[in-house]
């Protein structure tokens, strides 16, 4: 197997994920963590190439073909960092020491707007009760929350209790 400086090439996690494509973006639901992720088009392109065979340089070329603009390796690493954070890779991929971590803003300043920055937006899936309306308006006034599944005490204006 090809390696990036003594570590395996990135491989997208396949198990326990529900993956659906929506207008070029990916909606990914993690069954283990009950989190949903939205990968924008650039992140989706990179993630699809995380097959354990494709090097970072090759991923750059794929993105260059898709966008028609030059792509730096920093862009790929920015995506991989997010995939690692969100457990979307089979194994963690560490940046080489000479590839510095950049913030989103710094990356935009560096690569400009020709290439859309890969982004992963995530939400935690609610439990049944957390998705409920805790809106019985605390009919008893201040005190313990009266709604099943809503915890805490009634406070604030208007009186409400949170899930």
């Amino acid at each position: 197997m090809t390696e990036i400086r003594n570590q395996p090439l990135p491989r997208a996690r396949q198990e326990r994920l529900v993956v659906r494509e929506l207008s070029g973006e990916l909606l990914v639901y993690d069954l283990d963590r009950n989190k949903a992720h939205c990968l924008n088009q650039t992140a989706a392109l990179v993630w699809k190439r995380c097959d354990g065979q494709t090097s970072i340089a090759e991923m750059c070329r794929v993105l260059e073909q898709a966008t028609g603009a030059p792509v730096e390796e920093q862009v790929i690493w920015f995506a991989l960092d997010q995939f690692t954070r969100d457990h979307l890779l089979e194994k963690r991929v560490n940046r080489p020491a000479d590839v510095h971590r950049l913030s989103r803003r710094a990356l935009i300043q560096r690569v400009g707007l020709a290439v859309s920055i890969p982004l992963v937006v995530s939400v935690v899936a609610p439990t049944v009760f957390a998705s409920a309306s805790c809106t019985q308006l605390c009919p008893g006034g201040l005190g313990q929350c009266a709604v099943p599944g809503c915890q805490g005490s009634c406070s604030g204006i208007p009186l409400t209790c949170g899930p």
Partner: protein
Amino acid sequence: MDKIDRLGWAAGISFVSYGVRVGIRVNKREILDQLAERFPPGWKPSRARVVERLYSLIVGGEGARLGVRPFNILYGNVEKLLRTLDLDEFLDVFESDVKLHVAAGARRRVFVHAGVVGWRGQAIVIPGRSFSGKTTLVAELLRAGASYYSDEYAVLDGNGLVHPYPRPLSIRENGKRVKYRAEMMGAKSGVTPLPLGLVIVSRYKVGARWRPRSLSVAEGALAMIENTVSIQRQPETVVETLQRAIPNATVLKGTHGEAKQVVDFILDHFDSTVIKH
């Protein structure tokens, strides 16, 4: 047999709503009519002897013994959900709980916590939790001529169409919930399922100006997932349903102050720019 089963029950009923079987037993027969008004929409009586959720309601009322406070007590299966002297609160909590369990257990529908109206053959869905201002937006849209679908759940079928959830609007007035039928606000209730045209992800903030930004449809799906009752129970069904529902929708996000600002924006832009198809 649980202790609760040995209490004296005067009457009972079981019904099916969205495929979920619910049983109810009460200590006073006359309360059943009041309860029926609060069942989820589309309920039908059932002869099922086995139910997925059994409610046991002890109504205090006037028959309580001298010196005993006439508490109303609500059980969901064997769990005590509420003990209160206030009958309205008792009925409200029952209604809220039964609707939530039906929404969570529905087999062929996906329930998203949201307000919904119909406008020119498409559904406008406003996902959000309590106090996000969705009922106020729904009411304002109805005053502007939209048809009423729901102020509580967007009900999606397997093809991604949005169905009506016809319960009266529940509007807060002076700290109390007041129920209004759509017709009382001069609006019609929607009947036919509609394709999803617009998703408004918004939260009420005092004094905020409505300056929305567009989200991608996948981000819109994420906003729906955040408010989907059964996402943890049936994630694949939910994701597939949203994949069918949302691709042609426009998704807008922003904070809003006055509901009328949002509604005017929608009405100004609905035909020309907001709805893509």
